[in-house]
Every structure is written in structure tokens, then in C-alpha cells.
């Protein structure tokens, strides 16, 4: 393992040139002969009863091919699935409704679908659909929704409570009295949009055998099963020949356009294209769960945390979707990456008439990361203790158990990360003010986030390798690529093992009919899961090649090295054979150099939700971030001057991709502090990029990334996943830095200049 040629380097991705040259096609970049345009009619109100939908005028409009409502959907109601191989039960799968009937639960809930000859006609048809609403009051705050007598959001479920979860350790009540200081605070987090630059879209058509064929970029290829179920077809009657996404971040984890397209193409027997506008995307797709968190922490005067209690209320929005799963992440990470003998975290999630909440990079771990890291700074301030020292005193170390009692197999590098961060941040002394008079502040935060899915989902991945007769390799995997380099890293691993340059390995990805199912591109799992499956497949064919080469070179298979398109006798590199020659010999023997490798995550059963114990997730990745900023006390404007992002990635398989995740994640988390959807009784007031302001290159500071490579991960070569862990720490670090600069505390994530001014003026 010492002489990596591809692994660990800044290898250009296999698809980088196509993207640079403008050759890469996305979901919106196809047309077909005889194609129709699909549009969705969405609710005007956040809370209402849908009395009647009259589509007759729309259907009569020339150029309209189909108008569909709930009654046209073969199976309009089912449970939400997210590509898992098993139904988990226990309230984890909620109601999935294709088109609205009964109560309208949120603005932009889909009511009808239209397919027409042109986009203009389809839009015109939407206006001709007459919807009779009975507007109702609605509920928009989950804390209100959980009160007795609150407005009931759904017509199907009895209550607004989605799920209640609890994790505990030790005996809280017994230790409060021993604490020298108890710090208690309320926090709240904003909804957060993914704001990928490519909106949701794609195409569907029926192939010559009537198979519903989709070309839709999605993080979850396995949704084809749900689409089939909705249309009452067999699973093998739906194919998604998917395509790379222009960003996902969890927002393309739920079904987007797929079922609508499938319904319209079946109804019209013509190809249909649907692409959501930016407004539609911002209003209709899932958001990061807003959470209301209460923290109570007891410490000794020298900074040892004796007890921490967290209670959380999550806004699930209109439908269940991934809320229970996200809630697991919030609950078990609630007290942070700290060694606390006595702790408890209780979470409740509720329906409201807001846009539904679901997956967003960080998946529930991000909200609690904000709260526990703000709490740490409040404690440090009260104890007059250095924020690094307070954390170093309490962080988890190898051998410590997580909140559920589980002791991770992977390395816990928090101490090293904090030291590395401190070294970078304190290289230069902090100036009190910049020459222009602005006050300077520094803040830090650390984080814990898993890679790999919840163990009770029984996750698995498969990757197939076929060595061609000319020595090139075709790699097939149902890996959706959303831009993180999910496919390219597999080519890199395969090339590394077989001693081939990356360009010799062609990854063919994400086609439900043609590629082995590799599972979802979610949960920071592809490098861990599919990377390991790729190793299994590659090493299988490598063994065959090594045995053959050993015979030809008169040595033992383990004495061989694969490198530079050759197979060497390691101790005498003069004795070698071209890779392709050995391939030819194996082929002459009638053997195919092919293997489909599978990797299974650790399996567990659904825990007792009132007392969660054991291995809930495979392993954790740890991060530490620092921020330096300048605040203008006259205007309340603040500017990030720099970010230091430190992570133990185990092994940086592709250094560029790994750094890229850390950098992108840092700015994504920075965005949480400035992005405002301006929800107003279920209406998204900021529904464009002119008002929902994501960071530009001017907002983003220079980022210094520190990659610690402990080798202590469960992925290939000891790697850990970094995609979601990267989206932690910055938001609390910014707010901690504001406190450092101007001495004011904020307990929410969204901070605008006027909020700062208001605080400064007391």
C-alpha cells in the first residue's frame, strides 16, 4: 500500500474534460421527436381542503394531450421509500401521495399534471384548471402543531406528531447538583435550500416493448420501484437510464419529476419532458428541517462537562418523507462529539403546513452541530476559558462510546484536529481591528457526522468490473453522480489495483436495467460502500490475472506488482509482462475477466426508539473548522476573512475531490447563515436567486484545508466519507466569531446585518 500511483493524488476526474468543454449533458439537455412538455399545477394555499378540480377547459385547449389528477393515478398513495432494500416499519416510512386530494398540506403541493405540444400551451392549460379550495387556518410552527387542539395538518394521520425518539446515558438528575455551572439556552435553525444550479427535470418515454424509460438525474436510482408501484407495473417495467446531476446535496434524494413523467408518458404514449423553473424548485422541493433546540449543560469550574440534556422539536413540514431518519441523526448526535457520562437527547417531529422537510447535506447532524457548538462557546465565555481548551478537555477519544453506547471502530481524531486547527488559526495574532476600523473576530467549532446509511437499512452496494481483451476496463455501477466525483473515484481505485492509468478504466454508471445496483448517492456512502465493492470486484479479477502471471513468470502470485500497464516480479522488475498479454492468456483459457463485487454495511435491527442503543451508523467522520471575520459596527455588515477546514478523511483517495468537498461544504454551511427563504405562513417569499442569496465568490473567503489521514476509516484504504461532514461547523464558528468580535450572542442560524445592529444598539 505504500506506493500509490493514483490513490492519494490530485487525479483529474474521468469526466472533467467533458464538463470543461461543455460536452456533458444533463437531464434538461435532450429532446425527442413527437415530444410533449409536462407541467405541474400546484396549490395556491398552504392549508386548504381540495373540494373539486375541474379540468374540462384545460383538456379542451388545442395542443393539450393530457390533464391528470389524483383519480388518474393508479396507486396515488403509498409509503415513501428511499432505495432501501427492506421496509423498515416502525413509523419510518410515511405517507407518499403523488397528487393531492383531501387536505392540501402545503403551498405548491401538486394537484394536477399537464402534457402539451409546447411549454407555452402547457402553462396556458394550467391556468384553465379550475380548483375549488376551502381555505383553512393551517399551522406553521411545529411547537404549536404539537399542542393539544392544534390544527391537524393531514386528513389521513390522526395527529401532527411524526415521531418521538430518545437517547440517554448515565443519570442526569443525580449530577446537576454536582455541577459548578449550569448553562441553559434555546436555539433555532432556519430551513435551508440545496440551491443546486440545475433544477429538477428530465424525460420519459415508452420504449418499443412498452417499458417506461426515464432519463432523470436522481440521487436514488432505486426509486424506479416506487414509480412502478404508482403505475401498478412490475419493477422491471420501469427503467431510469439516469444522467449526472448538476448538484444534489440531498435535494434530489426524494422523487422529483419521475412519477409525473411516467404518468404523463403512459397517458399520452408519447415522450414527455419536464423541467422545473427555479421558483418551482425553491418552493416545491424539500428543505433542511428547521429545529427548535433546548440545551442544558452542567460543567465543573475547570470545564469538565458532567451532564448535557438536549430536547429538540423538528419541523417535518407537510409530509413525512425522510423526517424520521433525519431525526435519528439529530437525536444520536444531539450532545455532540463529547465524552459526557450523563446525557440525554429527546426529539419530537411534527407536521406543519410548511414545505416538507427532508434530506439536506448533513441530515439532521448539522442542526445539532450548530446548537452544541454554540453552547460550547457560551460555556467557555461563562467559565472565561479558551474555546480550544474547553473542547480539548471534553472531546471523544479512541475507545470512547457514542451517545448510544456504541464504540466506533474508526479513528477519532478530534484532539489532533483541534491542535492542527489551532496551529493554523493562531499562526498570526488576531488584530483587534482592521486598518479600516472593522472589528475582527475568530471562532471555531468541531463536528461529528457519519458516513454510510443507518445500519438497520441493511445497506449494500455492487460494482462490476470487466477487463477487455485490449487491457482496458469497463466498470459498471448504479452509482448516481451528483458532482462529488462518485464515479471517478471508482475508476481511480480500480486503476490503482490493476496498475492502469485512470483513462484505461471507463465507468459506465446509473442505468437501472444495465448497472448493478450500488445504492443511493446519499449519506456520504458512495466512497465507503461502492469503493469497497469496487475493491472486491477488482481484486477478484486481479487474483485471476496474478495467478496466470505467476505461472508465466515462474513465481508466486503474491510476489507480483501491477504497475504502468505491466505485471512485475516485485524483486526483479526485469521479469515482467504487459498487462494486456496476461489478459490474452486468461482469455485463451476460456475465462472471462469479470466480476460483480458486493459490499455490505454492518446490519442491525431497528432500535427501541425510546432508548436508542447500539450501532446506529457504521462510523463517524470528525471535523474542526475555524473562521476569522471582520464586522462593521456602523452597518452590521460582516465579512469572512478566512476559513480553516480540518478533517480526518482517513485517506484522501482523490486529494482534489476531498479538498473540494471540504471547501464546498464550508461555503454551503456559510450559506446557512445568510440564506433566507422568508417563509411566511407556508409561503416561500424568497423564491428566486435574486432574493434567496447563496454565497458568491465575493462572499466566500479563502479556505485552507487540512487533510489528516489517520487511515482509520472503514472505506477503501482506510478512507472515511467527507461529503456531509464538510457541511458542519462553519455556521456556529461564524456566530462564535461574531461573539468574539463584538461580544454579542446569537442563538439562531440566520444572521442579517440588521440583527447585528439591533444587538449592538442594545
Amino acid at each position, binding site marked *: 500500500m505504500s506506493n500509490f500511483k493514483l490513490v492519494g493524488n490530485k487525479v483529474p476526474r474521468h469526466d472533467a474534460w467533458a464538463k470543461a468543454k461543455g460536452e456533458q449533458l444533463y437531464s434538461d439537455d435532450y429532446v425527442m421527436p413527437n415530444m410533449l412538455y409536462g407541467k405541474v399545477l400546484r396549490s395556491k394555499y398552504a392549508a386548504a381542503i381540495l373540494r373539486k378540480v375541474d379540468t374540462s377547459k384545460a383538456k379542451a385547449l388545442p395542443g393539450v394531450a393530457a390533464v391528470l389528477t389524483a383519480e388518474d393515478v393508479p396507486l396515488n398513495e403509498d409509503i415513501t421509500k428511499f432505495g432501501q432494500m427492506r421496509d423498515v416499519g416502525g413509523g419510518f416510512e410515511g405517507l407518499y401521495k403523488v397528487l393531492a386530494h383531501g387536505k392540501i398540506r402545503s403551498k405548491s403541493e401538486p394537484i394536477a399534471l399537464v402534457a402539451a405540444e409546447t411549454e407555452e400551451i402547457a402553462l396556458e392549460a394550467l391556468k384553465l384548471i379550475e380548483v375549488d379550495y376551502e381555505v383553512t387556518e393551517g399551522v406553521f410552527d411545529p411547537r404549536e402543531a404539537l399542542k393539544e387542539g392544534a390544527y391537524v395538518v393531514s386528513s389521513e394521520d390522526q395527529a401532527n406528531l411524526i415521531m418521538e425518539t430518545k437517547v440517554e446515558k448515565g443519570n442526569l438528575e443525580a449530577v446537576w447538583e454536582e455541577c459548578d455551572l449550569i448553562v441553559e439556552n434555546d436555539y433555532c435553525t432556519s430551513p435551508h435550500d440545496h440551491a443546486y444550479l*440545475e433544477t429538477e427535470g428530465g424525460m420519459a418515454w415508452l420504449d418499443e416493448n412498452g417499458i417506461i424509460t426515464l432519463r432523470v438525474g436522481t440521487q436514488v436510482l432505486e426509486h424506479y420501484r416506487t414509480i412502478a408501484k404508482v403505475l401498478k407495473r412490475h419493477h422491471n417495467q420501469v427503467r431510469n437510464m439516469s444522467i449526472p446531476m448538476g448538484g444534489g446535496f440531498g435535494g434530489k434524494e426524494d422523487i422529483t419529476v419521475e412519477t409525473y413523467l411516467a404518468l404523463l408518458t403512459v397517458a399520452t404514449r408519447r415522450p414527455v419532458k419536464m423541467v422545473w423553473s427555479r421558483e418551482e424548485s425553491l418552493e416545491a422541493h424539500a428543505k433542511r428541517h428547521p429545529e427548535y433546540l433546548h440545551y442544558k449543560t452542567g460543567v465543573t469550574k475547570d470545564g469538565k462537562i458532567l451532564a448535557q440534556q438536549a430536547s429538540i422539536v423538528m419541523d417535518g413540514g407537510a409530509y413525512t418523507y425522510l423526517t424520521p431518519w433525519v431525526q435519528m441523526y439529530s437525536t444520536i448526535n444531539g450532545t455532540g462529539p463529547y465524552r459526557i457520562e450523563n446525557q440525554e437527547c429527546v426529539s419530537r417531529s411534527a407536521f406543519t403546513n410548511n414545505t416538507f422537510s427532508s434530506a439536506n447535506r448533513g441530515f439532521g447532524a448539522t442542526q445539532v452541530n450548530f446548537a452544541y457548538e454554540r453552547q460550547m462557546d457560551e460555556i467557555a465565555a461563562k467559565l472565561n476559558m479558551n474555546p480550544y481548551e474547553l473542547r480539548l478537555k471534553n472531546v471523544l477519544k479512541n475507545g470512547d462510546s457514542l451517545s448510544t453506547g456504541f464504540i466506533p471502530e474508526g479513528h477519532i481524531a478530534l484532539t489532533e484536529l483541534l491542535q492542527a486547527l489551532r496551529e493554523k488559526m493562531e499562526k498570526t495574532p488576531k488584530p483587534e481591528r482592521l486598518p479600516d476600523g472593522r472589528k475582527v473576530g475568530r471562532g471555531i467549532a468541531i463536528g461529528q457526522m457519519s458516513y454510510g446509511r443507518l445500519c438497520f437499512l441493511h445497506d449494500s452496494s455492487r460494482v462490476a468490473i470487466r477487463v477487455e481483451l485490449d487491457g482496458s476496463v469497463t466498470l459498471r455501477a448504479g452509482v448516481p453522480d451528483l458532482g462529488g466525483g462518485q464515479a471517478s473515484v471508482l475508476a481511480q481505485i480500480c486503476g490503482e489495483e490493476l496498475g492502469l492509468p485512470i483513462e484505461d478504466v471507463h465507468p459506465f454508471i446509473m442505468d437501472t436495467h444495465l448497472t448493478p445496483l450500488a445504492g443511493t448517492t446519499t449519506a456520504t456512502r458512495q466512497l465507503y460502500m461502492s469503493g469497497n465493492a469496487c475493491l472486491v470486484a477488482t481484486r477478484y479479477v486481479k487474483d485471476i490475472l496474478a495467478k496466470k502471471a505467476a505461472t508465466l513468470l515462474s513465481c508466486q502470485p503474491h510476489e507480483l506488482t501491477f504497475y504502468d500497464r505491466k505485471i512485475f516480479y516485485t524483486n526483479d522488475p526485469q521479469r515482467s509482462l504487459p498487462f494486456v498479454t496476461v489478459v490474452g492468456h486468461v482469455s485463451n483459457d476460456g475465462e472471462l475477466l469479470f466480476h460483480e463485487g458486493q459490499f455490505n454495511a454492518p446490519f442491525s435491527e431497528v432500535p427501541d426508539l425510546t432508548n436508542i442503543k447500539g450501532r446506529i451508523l457504521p462510523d463517524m467522520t470528525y471535523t474542526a473548522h475555524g473562521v476569522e471575520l471582520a464586522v462593521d459596527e456602523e452597518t452590521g455588515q460582516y465579512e469572512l476573512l478566512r476559513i480553516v477546514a480540518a478533517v480526518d478523511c482517513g485517506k484522501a483517495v482523490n486529494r482534489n475531490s476531498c479538498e473540494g468537498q471540504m471547501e464546498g461544504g464550508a461555503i454551503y454551511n456559510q450559506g446557512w447563515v445568510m440564506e433566507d427563504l422568508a417563509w411566511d405562513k407556508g409561503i416561500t417569499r424568497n423564491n428566486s*436567486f435574486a432574493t434567496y442569496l447563496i454565497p*458568491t*465568490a*465575493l462572499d466566500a473567503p479563502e479556505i485552507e484545508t487540512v487533510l489528516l489521514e489517520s487511515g482509520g476509516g472503514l472505506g477503501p484504504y482506510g478512507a472515511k466519507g467527507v461529503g456531509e461532514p464538510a457541511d458542519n461547523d462553519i455556521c456556529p464558528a461564524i456566530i462564535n466569531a461574531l461573539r468574539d468580535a463584538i461580544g454579542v450572542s446569537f442563538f439562531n442560524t440566520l444572521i442579517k446585518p440588521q440583527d447585528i445592529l439591533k444587538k449592538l444598539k442594545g
Partner: protein
Amino acid sequence: MAELLTLTLKVNGEEKTFQAPAHLSLLRLLRDNLYWEVKCGCEEGDCGTCTVYLDGRAVKSCVTLAHACAGHEVWTVKGLGYADDLTAKLQKAFVECGSIQCGFCTPGMIVAAKHYLDHDGRADRKAIREAIAGNLCRCTGYQKIVDAIYNVACELSNNDLPHNSKLKTQNSRLGLSGSPLGGVAHE
């Protein structure tokens, strides 16, 4: 149906004649004619994914009327990559620096970077950030994009390659400036 009007313009060096309604944006005209490399991220001039080179400057094609471009010269990243050394250098730098993740902002970003370097842009990270502030990227945090443009800027100043200094520097962030609607600074 809106009336179709004829317009002729040069796209990637080729003279082309199209039929398009008067209200059609340059973005829609290009995409309707299979120039898929011009991406549509918001269609309101906010995100920059649709940025093309019009008469020597970067403009947002979604807020530029197609008919206003009649008789003018439009280049997309695809055409520029083959015809223009600077664009080819930028593409190579983007590939090597890891500046490309999902790739959806890349075609517009490279055109914005070309505009900057074509108009006396220097190896100055802050100035580079200003120049691409109208082009959003959600994946990279901009770090490696700035790296790539910075590297090419350094290479240009080392080699002292002639810059296209005949054209005035003008901020193209709003899309209209530099387009035929905003007064073109070409000869």
C-alpha cells in the same frame, strides 16, 4: 403562437439563420438549436450558468434578447474551447485544479473567466472573485475555481501574451451591460 421572425448571427464562428419569436431570449434560441452547453439555472439573470461571449464580452444569455443579437457574434464555451487558446488554457486549468464538480456552472464560469483575462485581468485573487461574482457555484466554494483562473493569469503574465486590450473593461454581471441592449464596446 407568436410570429416567427428571421435573424442571422454568428454562433461559434458560423453564420446561422434562425426563426424565432421577438421575445425569445438568446439562451432559449441557443438551447432550442441544440447548443446544450449553454445551461439554464434560473432564467432571470441571477446565476450566470448561461453566460456566453457576445462580441468579445461575457453576457448572460437568458436576459439578452435573441433578436437584439442579429448581426452580432456569439461564442459558447464549446466553440471557444476549439477556437481560442485562452479558453483552452482555462479548460485545462479547471480540469487540473479540480475546479469542476457537478460541472453545471462550468460553461458559464469559464466564459466569465475568459472575459476577465481578456480585459486585462491580473493574477489577483480578490479581483478574480469580483469578476466571477455573477456566476454562482454551489459545489466548490469557489476556492479551486479561483485557483485555476489565478494560475492561468500567472501563466499569461509570465509569458507576456498579448491581452485583448482593445476592449474596455466593463462589469458584465447584470448581463445587460455589454449586450447589444446595454451598448456594446466593440469596434
